[in-house]
Protein backbone atom coordinates (compact mmCIF):
# COMPACT_ATOMS: atom_id res chain seq x y z
CA UNK A 1 0.00 0.00 0.00
CA UNK A 2 1.53 3.29 -1.02
CA UNK A 3 0.84 6.40 0.96
CA UNK A 4 1.72 9.92 0.02
CA UNK A 5 4.74 10.92 2.03
CA UNK A 6 4.77 14.49 3.15
CA UNK A 7 8.21 15.91 2.89
CA UNK A 8 11.19 14.71 0.97
CA UNK A 9 13.92 15.23 3.58
CA UNK A 10 14.46 12.12 5.63
CA UNK A 11 13.63 11.95 9.32
CA UNK A 12 16.34 9.39 9.89
CA UNK A 13 19.43 9.00 7.81
CA UNK A 14 21.85 6.13 8.29
CA UNK A 15 25.11 6.05 6.40
CA UNK A 16 27.58 3.19 6.49
CA UNK A 17 26.72 2.09 10.02
CA UNK A 18 28.72 -0.71 11.58
CA UNK A 19 28.20 -2.60 14.77
CA UNK A 20 30.73 -5.13 15.98
CA UNK A 21 30.53 -7.31 19.06
CA UNK A 22 33.33 -9.04 20.86
CA UNK A 23 32.94 -12.74 21.35
CA UNK A 24 34.15 -14.97 24.15
CA UNK A 25 37.11 -16.02 22.08
CA UNK A 26 39.86 -13.74 23.13
CA UNK A 27 43.21 -13.33 21.62
CA UNK A 28 45.16 -16.55 21.97
CA UNK A 29 48.31 -17.99 20.59
CA UNK A 30 46.33 -19.22 17.64
CA UNK A 31 45.02 -15.94 16.36
CA UNK A 32 43.40 -12.60 17.06
CA UNK A 33 40.17 -12.16 18.95
CA UNK A 34 37.06 -13.14 17.01
CA UNK A 35 34.52 -10.44 16.42
CA UNK A 36 30.88 -10.72 15.53
CA UNK A 37 29.99 -8.41 12.65
CA UNK A 38 26.35 -7.80 13.34
CA UNK A 39 25.94 -4.79 11.07
CA UNK A 40 28.51 -4.10 8.36
CA UNK A 41 27.89 -0.89 6.58
CA UNK A 42 24.18 -0.26 6.15
CA UNK A 43 22.82 2.91 4.63
CA UNK A 44 19.20 3.93 4.31
CA UNK A 45 16.83 6.82 4.86
CA UNK A 46 13.50 6.87 6.59
CA UNK A 47 11.24 9.55 5.16
CA UNK A 48 8.83 11.48 7.31
CA UNK A 49 5.43 9.89 7.64
CA UNK A 50 6.35 6.58 6.04
CA UNK A 51 6.53 3.06 7.35
CA UNK A 52 9.99 1.70 6.58
CA UNK A 53 10.47 -2.03 6.93
CA UNK A 54 13.66 -3.93 7.58
CA UNK A 55 13.35 -7.65 6.91
CA UNK A 56 15.65 -10.58 7.11
CA UNK A 57 16.18 -13.86 8.86
CA UNK A 58 17.81 -14.54 12.19
CA UNK A 59 21.33 -13.26 12.44
CA UNK A 60 20.97 -10.72 9.65
CA UNK A 61 21.42 -7.74 11.96
CA UNK A 62 18.01 -6.11 11.65
CA UNK A 63 17.40 -5.89 15.39
CA UNK A 64 20.90 -4.59 15.96
CA UNK A 65 20.28 -1.90 13.35
CA UNK A 66 17.24 -0.74 15.30
CA UNK A 67 19.23 -0.76 18.50
CA UNK A 68 22.04 1.39 17.22
CA UNK A 69 19.52 4.01 16.16
CA UNK A 70 18.04 3.90 19.66
CA UNK A 71 21.49 4.05 21.27
CA UNK A 72 20.97 0.67 22.88
CA UNK A 73 24.01 -0.69 21.13
CA UNK A 74 27.13 1.12 20.21
CA UNK A 75 27.77 1.72 16.54
CA UNK A 76 31.46 1.41 15.85
CA UNK A 77 31.40 3.42 12.62
CA UNK A 78 29.11 5.41 10.42
CA UNK A 79 26.71 8.29 10.84
CA UNK A 80 23.13 8.32 11.97
CA UNK A 81 21.12 11.52 11.92
CA UNK A 82 17.68 12.21 13.27
CA UNK A 83 15.99 15.32 11.93
CA UNK A 84 19.39 16.49 10.77
CA UNK A 85 21.04 15.97 14.16
CA UNK A 86 23.83 13.40 14.42
CA UNK A 87 23.04 10.71 16.98
CA UNK A 88 26.32 8.87 17.43
CA UNK A 89 28.43 10.20 20.22
CA UNK A 90 25.64 12.07 21.97
CA UNK A 91 25.82 12.13 25.74
CA UNK A 92 23.04 10.83 27.95
CA UNK A 93 21.90 14.37 28.74
CA UNK A 94 21.61 15.16 25.05
CA UNK A 95 19.61 12.00 24.55
CA UNK A 96 16.94 12.80 27.09
CA UNK A 97 14.93 15.21 24.96
CA UNK A 98 15.32 12.82 22.04
CA UNK A 99 13.65 10.06 24.02
CA UNK A 100 10.42 11.96 23.69
CA UNK A 101 10.73 12.02 19.97
CA UNK A 102 11.89 8.44 19.39
CA UNK A 103 10.04 5.56 21.02
CA UNK A 104 10.07 1.81 20.54
CA UNK A 105 7.98 -1.32 20.84
CA UNK A 106 9.66 -4.71 21.07
CA UNK A 107 8.56 -8.28 20.75
CA UNK A 108 7.67 -9.39 24.23
CA UNK A 109 4.93 -7.25 25.74
CA UNK A 110 4.96 -9.09 29.05
CA UNK A 111 8.64 -8.42 29.55
CA UNK A 112 8.24 -4.79 28.56
CA UNK A 113 5.72 -4.04 31.25
CA UNK A 114 6.35 -3.78 34.97
CA UNK A 115 4.45 -6.66 36.54
CA UNK A 116 3.77 -4.66 39.68
CA UNK A 117 2.13 -1.58 38.20
CA UNK A 118 -1.36 -1.32 36.79
CA UNK A 119 -1.45 -0.42 33.14
CA UNK A 120 -2.79 3.09 33.61
CA UNK A 121 0.12 3.93 35.89
CA UNK A 122 2.59 2.59 33.37
CA UNK A 123 1.16 4.75 30.61
CA UNK A 124 1.25 7.82 32.85
CA UNK A 125 4.87 7.24 33.82
CA UNK A 126 6.55 8.73 30.71
CA UNK A 127 4.64 11.95 31.25
CA UNK A 128 5.89 12.13 34.81
CA UNK A 129 9.47 11.49 33.76
CA UNK A 130 9.39 14.27 31.22
CA UNK A 131 7.44 16.56 33.51
CA UNK A 132 4.49 17.10 31.27
CA UNK A 133 1.23 18.50 32.59
CA UNK A 134 -0.40 18.23 35.98
CA UNK A 135 -1.40 14.97 37.63
CA UNK A 136 -4.96 15.44 36.38
CA UNK A 137 -3.78 16.16 32.85
CA UNK A 138 -1.62 13.06 32.84
CA UNK A 139 -4.41 10.82 33.98
CA UNK A 140 -6.71 12.18 31.36
CA UNK A 141 -4.17 11.86 28.59
CA UNK A 142 -3.32 8.32 29.57
CA UNK A 143 -6.97 7.35 29.60
CA UNK A 144 -7.44 8.88 26.18
CA UNK A 145 -4.59 7.10 24.57
CA UNK A 146 -5.53 3.78 26.14
CA UNK A 147 -8.92 4.16 24.55
CA UNK A 148 -7.32 5.10 21.30
CA UNK A 149 -5.43 1.83 21.29
CA UNK A 150 -8.59 -0.08 21.99
CA UNK A 151 -8.66 -0.74 25.71
CA UNK A 152 -11.77 -0.15 27.75
CA UNK A 153 -11.96 1.83 30.98
CA UNK A 154 -12.50 -1.23 33.13
CA UNK A 155 -9.13 -2.59 32.00
CA UNK A 156 -7.12 0.45 33.09
CA UNK A 157 -6.64 -0.82 36.62
CA UNK A 158 -5.49 -4.26 35.61
CA UNK A 159 -2.01 -5.68 35.98
CA UNK A 160 -0.17 -6.87 32.89
CA UNK A 161 -0.59 -10.54 33.72
CA UNK A 162 -4.34 -10.08 33.84
CA UNK A 163 -4.48 -9.05 30.20
CA UNK A 164 -4.06 -11.06 27.03
CA UNK A 165 -1.01 -10.81 24.79
CA UNK A 166 -2.73 -8.52 22.34
CA UNK A 167 -4.00 -6.27 25.09
CA UNK A 168 -0.56 -6.01 26.59
CA UNK A 169 0.96 -5.00 23.32
CA UNK A 170 -1.68 -2.30 23.04
CA UNK A 171 -0.61 -1.00 26.45
CA UNK A 172 3.00 -0.97 25.32
CA UNK A 173 1.97 0.99 22.26
CA UNK A 174 -0.02 3.44 24.37
CA UNK A 175 2.94 3.97 26.63
CA UNK A 176 5.22 4.53 23.69
CA UNK A 177 2.89 6.94 21.96
CA UNK A 178 1.73 9.06 24.87
CA UNK A 179 4.73 11.31 24.39
CA UNK A 180 3.66 11.88 20.80
CA UNK A 181 6.96 10.78 19.32
CA UNK A 182 7.89 11.40 15.74
CA UNK A 183 9.55 8.06 15.19
CA UNK A 184 8.33 4.69 16.45
CA UNK A 185 10.75 1.79 16.18
CA UNK A 186 8.98 -1.59 16.20
CA UNK A 187 10.99 -4.79 16.46
CA UNK A 188 8.80 -7.82 15.80
CA UNK A 189 5.88 -6.26 17.65
CA UNK A 190 3.36 -8.90 16.66
CA UNK A 191 5.40 -12.08 16.31
CA UNK A 192 4.54 -13.26 19.80
CA UNK A 193 0.81 -12.77 19.31
CA UNK A 194 -1.86 -15.12 18.08
CA UNK A 195 -2.68 -14.97 14.40
CA UNK A 196 -6.18 -13.59 14.90
CA UNK A 197 -4.80 -10.82 17.09
CA UNK A 198 -1.99 -9.90 14.73
CA UNK A 199 -4.41 -8.45 12.25
CA UNK A 200 -5.95 -6.32 14.97
CA UNK A 201 -2.60 -4.84 15.95
CA UNK A 202 -1.62 -4.27 12.34
CA UNK A 203 -4.80 -2.29 11.79
CA UNK A 204 -4.16 -0.41 15.00
CA UNK A 205 -0.69 0.58 13.86
CA UNK A 206 -2.06 1.88 10.61
CA UNK A 207 -4.77 3.82 12.36
CA UNK A 208 -2.35 5.38 14.83
CA UNK A 209 0.01 6.27 12.06
CA UNK A 210 -2.72 8.10 10.20
CA UNK A 211 -4.03 9.86 13.27
CA UNK A 212 -0.69 10.85 14.74
CA UNK A 213 1.42 11.34 11.64
CA UNK A 214 3.91 8.78 12.88
CA UNK A 215 7.00 7.61 11.10
CA UNK A 216 7.57 3.94 11.75
CA UNK A 217 10.64 1.74 11.46
CA UNK A 218 9.21 -1.77 11.31
CA UNK A 219 11.57 -4.70 11.83
CA UNK A 220 10.19 -8.14 11.08
CA UNK A 221 10.92 -11.52 9.61
CA UNK A 222 7.33 -11.83 8.42
CA UNK A 223 7.22 -10.61 4.85
CA UNK A 224 3.45 -10.82 4.57
CA UNK A 225 3.03 -8.28 7.34
CA UNK A 226 5.77 -6.10 5.93
CA UNK A 227 4.18 -6.17 2.50
CA UNK A 228 0.96 -5.03 4.01
CA UNK A 229 2.24 -2.30 6.28
CA UNK A 230 5.36 -0.82 4.75
CA UNK A 231 5.85 1.83 2.13
CA UNK A 232 9.52 1.10 1.58
CA UNK A 233 11.72 -1.61 2.89
CA UNK A 234 15.26 -2.95 3.12
CA UNK A 235 16.23 -6.63 2.99
CA UNK A 236 19.18 -7.59 5.15
CA UNK A 237 21.47 -10.58 4.97
CA UNK A 238 24.40 -11.18 7.31
CA UNK A 239 24.80 -7.58 8.34
CA UNK A 240 24.32 -5.96 4.96
CA UNK A 241 21.39 -4.54 3.04
CA UNK A 242 21.04 -6.56 -0.11
CA UNK A 243 18.05 -4.78 -1.57
CA UNK A 244 15.92 -1.79 -0.74
CA UNK A 245 13.20 0.25 -2.29
CA UNK A 246 9.43 0.74 -2.46
CA UNK A 247 7.57 -2.26 -1.06
CA UNK A 248 5.33 -2.80 -4.08
CA UNK A 249 8.28 -2.57 -6.38
CA UNK A 250 10.39 -5.08 -4.44
CA UNK A 251 7.61 -7.63 -4.16
CA UNK A 252 6.72 -7.26 -7.82
CA UNK A 253 10.30 -7.29 -9.08
CA UNK A 254 12.72 -8.71 -6.52
CA UNK A 255 16.17 -8.35 -8.03
CA UNK A 256 18.55 -9.78 -5.48
CA UNK A 257 18.69 -13.59 -5.49
CA UNK A 258 18.25 -13.67 -1.72
CA UNK A 259 15.13 -11.53 -1.86
CA UNK A 260 13.78 -13.77 -4.59
CA UNK A 261 14.43 -16.86 -2.51
CA UNK A 262 12.95 -15.24 0.59
CA UNK A 263 9.75 -14.22 -1.13
CA UNK A 264 9.38 -17.56 -2.83
CA UNK A 265 9.75 -19.35 0.49
CA UNK A 266 6.67 -17.80 2.01
CA UNK A 267 3.74 -20.18 2.01
CA UNK A 268 0.60 -18.58 0.65
CA UNK A 269 -2.74 -19.62 2.17
CA UNK A 270 -4.21 -20.71 -1.12
CA UNK A 271 -3.95 -24.38 -2.02
CA UNK A 272 -4.25 -23.94 -5.76
CA UNK A 273 -1.31 -21.64 -6.13
CA UNK A 274 1.87 -23.56 -6.60
CA UNK A 275 4.74 -21.17 -6.12
CA UNK A 276 8.04 -21.86 -7.77
CA UNK A 277 10.29 -22.23 -4.81
CA UNK A 278 13.86 -21.11 -5.00
CA UNK A 279 15.74 -23.35 -2.63
CA UNK A 280 18.71 -22.07 -0.77
CA UNK A 281 21.53 -24.49 -0.33
CA UNK A 282 23.22 -24.96 2.98
CA UNK A 283 23.04 -23.06 6.18
CA UNK A 284 23.34 -19.35 6.86
CA UNK A 285 26.98 -18.69 7.71
CA UNK A 286 28.09 -17.21 10.98
CA UNK A 287 28.39 -13.45 11.41
CA UNK A 288 31.70 -14.13 13.11
CA UNK A 289 33.33 -15.30 9.91
CA UNK A 290 31.38 -13.87 7.01
CA UNK A 291 32.33 -15.11 3.53
CA UNK A 292 34.69 -13.01 1.47
CA UNK A 293 33.22 -10.99 -1.32
CA UNK A 294 29.45 -11.03 -1.59
CA UNK A 295 28.22 -12.50 1.67
CA UNK A 296 25.47 -14.42 -0.07
CA UNK A 297 27.54 -16.03 -2.79
CA UNK A 298 28.09 -19.48 -1.14
CA UNK A 299 24.36 -20.10 -1.21
CA UNK A 300 23.51 -18.32 -4.41
CA UNK A 301 22.54 -20.30 -7.47
CA UNK A 302 23.62 -17.47 -9.73
CA UNK A 303 27.05 -16.85 -8.24
CA UNK A 304 30.00 -16.33 -10.51
CA UNK A 305 33.73 -15.82 -9.99
CA UNK A 306 33.38 -12.09 -9.41
CA UNK A 307 31.04 -12.74 -6.51
CA UNK A 308 33.71 -14.22 -4.27
CA UNK A 309 36.29 -11.66 -5.23
CA UNK A 310 34.66 -8.41 -4.22
CA UNK A 311 31.65 -7.07 -2.39
CA UNK A 312 29.01 -5.85 -4.77
CA UNK A 313 28.06 -2.20 -4.61
CA UNK A 314 24.50 -1.02 -4.83
CA UNK A 315 23.05 -0.89 -8.33
CA UNK A 316 19.91 0.94 -9.26
CA UNK A 317 17.15 -1.34 -10.46
CA UNK A 318 14.38 1.15 -10.77
CA UNK A 319 13.26 4.40 -9.21
CA UNK A 320 14.36 4.24 -5.61
CA UNK A 321 15.04 0.53 -5.97
CA UNK A 322 18.58 -0.65 -5.24
CA UNK A 323 20.10 -4.11 -5.14
CA UNK A 324 23.66 -5.05 -4.16
CA UNK A 325 24.42 -7.82 -6.57
CA UNK A 326 26.67 -8.25 -9.61
CA UNK A 327 24.12 -10.45 -11.30
CA UNK A 328 20.95 -8.61 -10.45
CA UNK A 329 18.57 -8.23 -13.33
CA UNK A 330 15.11 -6.81 -12.77
CA UNK A 331 12.61 -9.67 -13.02
CA UNK A 332 9.09 -9.33 -14.30
CA UNK A 333 6.43 -11.22 -12.34
CA UNK A 334 7.01 -13.28 -9.22
CA UNK A 335 7.26 -16.69 -10.82
CA UNK A 336 3.88 -17.85 -9.65
CA UNK A 337 1.68 -19.83 -11.99
Amino acid at each position, binding site marked *: MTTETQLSDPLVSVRDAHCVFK*TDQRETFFGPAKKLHAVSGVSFDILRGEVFGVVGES*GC*GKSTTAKIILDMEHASEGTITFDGMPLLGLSDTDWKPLRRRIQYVFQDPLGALDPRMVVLAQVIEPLTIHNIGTTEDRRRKAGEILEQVGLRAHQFAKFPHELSGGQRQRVVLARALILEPELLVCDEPISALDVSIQAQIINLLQKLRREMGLTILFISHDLSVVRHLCDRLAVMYLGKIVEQGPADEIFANPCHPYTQALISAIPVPEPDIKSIRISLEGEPPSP*IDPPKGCRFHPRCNMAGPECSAAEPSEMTMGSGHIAACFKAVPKTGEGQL
Partner: protein
Amino acid sequence: MNLRFLLQKLARALLTVILIVTTVFVVLRLTGDPAMYVLGIEADPRALEQFRERWGLNDPIWQQYIRFIWNCLRGDFGYSYFEERDAMTAVMERLPKTLLLMGATGVFTMVVGIPMGVLAAIYRNSWVDRLTMTVSVAGFSLPNFVLGIFLILVFSVTLRWLPTGGSGTWKHLVMPVLTMGLAEAAVFARFTRSAMLEALNQPYMRTARAKGLRRNATVWLHALPNAAIPLVTITGFFVGTLIAGGVVTESVFSWPGLGRLLVTSVSNRDLAVVQIIVMFIAVSMVVTNLTIDLLYGWLDPRVGSARSGG
Protein backbone atom coordinates in the same frame (compact mmCIF):
# COMPACT_ATOMS: atom_id res chain seq x y z
CA MET B 1 41.24 -27.06 26.92
CA ASN B 2 43.19 -23.92 26.62
CA LEU B 3 46.67 -24.03 28.16
CA ARG B 4 46.59 -20.35 28.99
CA PHE B 5 43.26 -20.83 30.74
CA LEU B 6 44.67 -23.67 32.82
CA LEU B 7 47.80 -21.76 33.82
CA GLN B 8 45.72 -18.77 34.84
CA LYS B 9 43.60 -20.95 37.08
CA LEU B 10 46.65 -22.58 38.64
CA ALA B 11 48.25 -19.23 39.30
CA ARG B 12 45.10 -17.99 40.99
CA ALA B 13 44.90 -21.16 43.04
CA LEU B 14 48.45 -20.74 44.25
CA LEU B 15 47.80 -17.15 45.17
CA THR B 16 44.80 -18.18 47.23
CA VAL B 17 46.79 -20.71 49.18
CA ILE B 18 49.55 -18.21 49.91
CA LEU B 19 47.02 -15.64 51.05
CA ILE B 20 45.34 -18.05 53.45
CA VAL B 21 48.55 -19.32 54.95
CA THR B 22 49.91 -15.83 55.40
CA THR B 23 46.77 -14.62 57.13
CA VAL B 24 46.82 -17.50 59.57
CA PHE B 25 50.53 -17.01 60.15
CA VAL B 26 50.05 -13.40 61.12
CA VAL B 27 46.95 -13.95 63.21
CA LEU B 28 48.55 -16.74 65.20
CA ARG B 29 51.49 -14.64 66.12
CA LEU B 30 49.44 -11.67 67.11
CA THR B 31 47.10 -13.53 69.42
CA GLY B 32 49.02 -15.02 72.20
CA ASP B 33 52.35 -16.20 73.31
CA PRO B 34 53.25 -19.79 72.50
CA ALA B 35 55.83 -19.89 75.21
CA MET B 36 53.22 -19.49 77.88
CA TYR B 37 51.01 -22.15 76.38
CA VAL B 38 53.76 -24.68 76.15
CA LEU B 39 55.55 -24.05 79.37
CA GLY B 40 52.60 -22.96 81.41
CA ILE B 41 51.57 -19.61 82.80
CA GLU B 42 53.54 -20.00 85.98
CA ALA B 43 56.78 -20.87 84.29
CA ASP B 44 59.93 -19.02 85.02
CA PRO B 45 60.15 -15.85 82.94
CA ARG B 46 63.67 -16.70 82.00
CA ALA B 47 62.56 -20.08 80.66
CA LEU B 48 59.84 -18.34 78.71
CA GLU B 49 62.35 -15.88 77.28
CA GLN B 50 64.70 -18.69 76.39
CA PHE B 51 61.88 -20.45 74.60
CA ARG B 52 61.03 -17.38 72.60
CA GLU B 53 64.67 -16.80 71.67
CA ARG B 54 65.05 -20.41 70.67
CA TRP B 55 62.14 -20.26 68.29
CA GLY B 56 62.76 -16.77 67.01
CA LEU B 57 59.47 -15.51 68.37
CA ASN B 58 60.95 -12.13 69.31
CA ASP B 59 61.90 -11.35 65.80
CA PRO B 60 59.69 -9.03 63.78
CA ILE B 61 56.85 -10.83 62.03
CA TRP B 62 58.07 -10.25 58.51
CA GLN B 63 61.38 -11.82 59.43
CA GLN B 64 59.67 -14.82 60.90
CA TYR B 65 57.55 -15.04 57.79
CA ILE B 66 60.49 -15.09 55.42
CA ARG B 67 62.20 -17.71 57.53
CA PHE B 68 59.03 -19.75 57.42
CA ILE B 69 58.69 -19.55 53.64
CA TRP B 70 62.33 -20.37 53.17
CA ASN B 71 62.04 -23.38 55.42
CA CYS B 72 58.94 -24.58 53.66
CA LEU B 73 60.69 -24.46 50.33
CA ARG B 74 63.43 -26.63 51.79
CA GLY B 75 60.89 -29.10 53.11
CA ASP B 76 61.16 -28.15 56.73
CA PHE B 77 57.71 -27.32 57.96
CA GLY B 78 58.56 -26.66 61.55
CA TYR B 79 58.69 -28.27 64.90
CA SER B 80 55.76 -29.15 67.08
CA TYR B 81 56.32 -27.54 70.48
CA PHE B 82 53.76 -29.72 72.05
CA GLU B 83 54.71 -33.10 70.75
CA GLU B 84 58.36 -32.26 70.63
CA ARG B 85 58.98 -33.66 67.24
CA ASP B 86 58.84 -32.72 63.58
CA ALA B 87 55.49 -31.05 62.92
CA MET B 88 54.94 -32.64 59.54
CA THR B 89 55.35 -36.11 60.98
CA ALA B 90 52.83 -35.32 63.69
CA VAL B 91 50.36 -34.19 61.07
CA MET B 92 50.92 -37.02 58.64
CA GLU B 93 50.28 -39.51 61.39
CA ARG B 94 46.74 -38.20 61.76
CA LEU B 95 46.03 -37.73 58.09
CA PRO B 96 44.88 -41.27 57.24
CA LYS B 97 42.27 -41.18 60.00
CA THR B 98 40.79 -37.99 58.74
CA LEU B 99 40.81 -39.23 55.19
CA LEU B 100 39.00 -42.33 56.31
CA LEU B 101 36.32 -40.37 58.09
CA MET B 102 35.87 -37.91 55.25
CA GLY B 103 35.84 -40.62 52.66
CA ALA B 104 33.27 -42.67 54.50
CA THR B 105 31.12 -39.60 55.05
CA GLY B 106 31.42 -38.65 51.42
CA VAL B 107 30.30 -42.06 50.27
CA PHE B 108 27.44 -42.09 52.75
CA THR B 109 26.28 -38.66 51.66
CA MET B 110 26.20 -39.50 47.98
CA VAL B 111 24.72 -42.94 48.41
CA VAL B 112 21.92 -41.71 50.64
CA GLY B 113 21.40 -38.14 49.50
CA ILE B 114 21.37 -38.40 45.75
CA PRO B 115 18.94 -41.30 45.36
CA MET B 116 16.66 -39.65 47.93
CA GLY B 117 16.60 -36.53 45.83
CA VAL B 118 16.02 -38.44 42.63
CA LEU B 119 13.10 -40.35 44.13
CA ALA B 120 11.62 -37.18 45.56
CA ALA B 121 11.75 -35.60 42.12
CA ILE B 122 10.31 -38.56 40.25
CA TYR B 123 7.46 -39.01 42.69
CA ARG B 124 6.96 -35.32 43.11
CA ASN B 125 4.28 -34.27 45.57
CA SER B 126 3.71 -37.85 46.67
CA TRP B 127 4.31 -39.14 50.16
CA VAL B 128 7.82 -40.17 49.14
CA ASP B 129 8.59 -36.61 48.21
CA ARG B 130 7.10 -35.10 51.33
CA LEU B 131 8.77 -37.57 53.63
CA THR B 132 12.23 -37.17 52.17
CA MET B 133 11.99 -33.41 52.18
CA THR B 134 10.81 -33.29 55.79
CA VAL B 135 13.59 -35.61 56.88
CA SER B 136 16.07 -33.52 54.97
CA VAL B 137 14.99 -30.31 56.65
CA ALA B 138 15.44 -32.02 60.01
CA GLY B 139 18.80 -33.26 58.80
CA PHE B 140 20.38 -29.98 58.03
CA SER B 141 18.67 -28.00 60.75
CA LEU B 142 20.19 -29.96 63.56
CA PRO B 143 23.65 -28.70 64.53
CA ASN B 144 26.08 -31.53 64.11
CA PHE B 145 27.45 -31.44 67.63
CA VAL B 146 23.95 -31.72 69.03
CA LEU B 147 23.28 -34.67 66.80
CA GLY B 148 26.60 -36.21 67.71
CA ILE B 149 26.05 -35.96 71.43
CA PHE B 150 22.52 -37.21 71.03
CA LEU B 151 23.71 -40.25 69.12
CA ILE B 152 26.25 -40.97 71.79
CA LEU B 153 23.61 -40.74 74.46
CA VAL B 154 21.34 -43.16 72.65
CA PHE B 155 23.67 -45.67 71.06
CA SER B 156 26.59 -45.67 73.45
CA VAL B 157 25.30 -44.78 76.84
CA THR B 158 21.82 -46.23 76.75
CA LEU B 159 21.91 -49.05 74.24
CA ARG B 160 25.61 -49.80 74.55
CA TRP B 161 25.80 -50.83 70.94
CA LEU B 162 28.54 -48.49 69.85
CA PRO B 163 31.68 -47.10 71.50
CA THR B 164 31.60 -43.47 72.59
CA GLY B 165 34.77 -42.40 70.88
CA GLY B 166 38.15 -43.16 69.48
CA SER B 167 38.80 -45.19 66.40
CA GLY B 168 39.83 -48.65 65.35
CA THR B 169 36.85 -50.70 64.27
CA TRP B 170 33.96 -50.08 61.95
CA LYS B 171 31.80 -49.52 65.00
CA HIS B 172 33.79 -46.43 65.81
CA LEU B 173 33.06 -45.09 62.35
CA VAL B 174 29.28 -45.32 62.45
CA MET B 175 28.31 -42.38 64.62
CA PRO B 176 30.83 -39.85 63.35
CA VAL B 177 29.83 -40.62 59.77
CA LEU B 178 26.15 -40.32 60.64
CA THR B 179 26.75 -37.06 62.46
CA MET B 180 28.44 -35.42 59.52
CA GLY B 181 26.72 -37.33 56.79
CA LEU B 182 23.08 -36.87 57.67
CA ALA B 183 23.17 -33.11 57.34
CA GLU B 184 25.13 -33.30 54.13
CA ALA B 185 22.91 -35.99 52.68
CA ALA B 186 19.96 -33.75 53.46
CA VAL B 187 21.49 -30.89 51.52
CA PHE B 188 22.34 -33.13 48.62
CA ALA B 189 18.83 -34.56 48.59
CA ARG B 190 17.36 -31.08 48.26
CA PHE B 191 19.71 -29.99 45.55
CA THR B 192 19.36 -33.23 43.66
CA ARG B 193 15.61 -32.90 43.80
CA SER B 194 15.56 -29.42 42.30
CA ALA B 195 18.20 -30.26 39.73
CA MET B 196 16.22 -33.35 38.71
CA LEU B 197 12.93 -31.48 38.60
CA GLU B 198 14.51 -28.91 36.36
CA ALA B 199 15.89 -31.61 34.08
CA LEU B 200 12.65 -33.61 34.04
CA ASN B 201 10.80 -30.54 32.84
CA GLN B 202 12.98 -30.02 29.84
CA PRO B 203 11.72 -30.58 26.30
CA TYR B 204 14.35 -33.19 25.56
CA MET B 205 12.71 -35.57 28.02
CA ARG B 206 9.63 -35.60 25.87
CA THR B 207 11.75 -36.26 22.81
CA ALA B 208 13.36 -39.21 24.52
CA ARG B 209 9.97 -40.73 25.28
CA ALA B 210 8.75 -39.99 21.80
CA LYS B 211 11.64 -42.09 20.50
CA GLY B 212 10.27 -45.06 22.36
CA LEU B 213 12.31 -45.00 25.57
CA ARG B 214 10.54 -46.22 28.66
CA ARG B 215 9.92 -43.59 31.30
CA ASN B 216 12.43 -45.06 33.75
CA ALA B 217 15.13 -45.23 31.15
CA THR B 218 14.65 -41.58 30.24
CA VAL B 219 15.24 -40.58 33.85
CA TRP B 220 18.57 -42.36 34.13
CA LEU B 221 19.83 -41.80 30.61
CA HIS B 222 18.70 -38.27 29.94
CA ALA B 223 17.70 -36.42 33.09
CA LEU B 224 20.48 -37.51 35.40
CA PRO B 225 23.43 -36.43 33.21
CA ASN B 226 21.90 -32.98 33.04
CA ALA B 227 21.06 -32.88 36.73
CA ALA B 228 24.64 -33.84 37.56
CA ILE B 229 25.91 -30.50 36.38
CA PRO B 230 24.54 -28.30 39.17
CA LEU B 231 25.34 -31.08 41.64
CA VAL B 232 28.99 -30.78 40.77
CA THR B 233 28.90 -27.18 41.93
CA ILE B 234 27.72 -28.01 45.39
CA THR B 235 30.34 -30.72 45.72
CA GLY B 236 32.80 -27.90 46.05
CA PHE B 237 30.90 -26.47 48.99
CA PHE B 238 30.48 -29.95 50.32
CA VAL B 239 34.21 -30.53 50.65
CA GLY B 240 34.47 -27.30 52.59
CA THR B 241 31.70 -28.30 54.95
CA LEU B 242 33.26 -31.70 55.42
CA ILE B 243 36.43 -30.09 56.57
CA ALA B 244 34.68 -27.68 58.89
CA GLY B 245 32.32 -30.31 60.19
CA GLY B 246 35.18 -32.70 60.56
CA VAL B 247 36.80 -30.49 63.14
CA VAL B 248 33.73 -30.49 65.36
CA THR B 249 32.86 -34.12 64.82
CA GLU B 250 36.35 -35.34 65.52
CA SER B 251 36.31 -33.41 68.76
CA VAL B 252 32.96 -34.77 69.85
CA PHE B 253 33.95 -38.35 69.11
CA SER B 254 37.59 -38.05 70.06
CA TRP B 255 38.46 -39.22 66.60
CA PRO B 256 42.25 -39.02 66.32
CA GLY B 257 42.38 -37.09 63.11
CA LEU B 258 43.55 -33.73 61.83
CA GLY B 259 40.47 -31.90 63.02
CA ARG B 260 41.04 -32.74 66.60
CA LEU B 261 44.72 -32.00 66.23
CA LEU B 262 43.86 -28.62 64.82
CA VAL B 263 41.67 -27.71 67.76
CA THR B 264 44.25 -28.72 70.32
CA SER B 265 47.09 -27.10 68.43
CA VAL B 266 45.31 -23.79 68.18
CA SER B 267 44.56 -23.83 71.88
CA ASN B 268 48.17 -24.61 72.57
CA ARG B 269 49.54 -22.23 70.01
CA ASP B 270 51.47 -25.08 68.46
CA LEU B 271 52.21 -22.80 65.55
CA ALA B 272 53.91 -25.11 63.12
CA VAL B 273 51.22 -27.76 63.33
CA VAL B 274 48.44 -25.26 62.88
CA GLN B 275 50.16 -23.80 59.86
CA ILE B 276 50.57 -27.16 58.23
CA ILE B 277 46.98 -28.16 58.77
CA VAL B 278 45.76 -24.82 57.44
CA MET B 279 47.93 -25.28 54.39
CA PHE B 280 46.46 -28.70 53.82
CA ILE B 281 42.94 -27.35 54.09
CA ALA B 282 43.67 -24.47 51.77
CA VAL B 283 45.29 -26.67 49.18
CA SER B 284 42.49 -29.23 49.26
CA MET B 285 39.80 -26.55 48.88
CA VAL B 286 41.63 -24.93 46.04
CA VAL B 287 42.30 -28.22 44.29
CA THR B 288 38.67 -29.24 44.72
CA ASN B 289 37.40 -26.05 43.19
CA LEU B 290 39.86 -26.23 40.34
CA THR B 291 38.81 -29.79 39.64
CA ILE B 292 35.20 -28.76 39.64
CA ASP B 293 35.86 -25.92 37.22
CA LEU B 294 37.50 -28.33 34.85
CA LEU B 295 34.87 -30.98 35.43
CA TYR B 296 32.21 -28.46 34.56
CA GLY B 297 33.74 -27.89 31.20
CA TRP B 298 33.82 -31.62 30.57
CA LEU B 299 30.29 -32.33 31.77
CA ASP B 300 28.58 -29.45 30.03
CA PRO B 301 29.63 -29.08 26.41
CA ARG B 302 27.99 -25.68 26.15
CA VAL B 303 30.52 -24.13 28.53
CA GLY B 304 33.34 -22.39 26.76
CA SER B 305 31.95 -22.39 23.25
CA ALA B 306 31.94 -19.10 21.38
CA ARG B 307 28.66 -17.31 21.20
CA SER B 308 27.41 -16.44 17.77
CA GLY B 309 24.37 -14.93 16.08
CA GLY B 310 23.18 -11.33 15.95
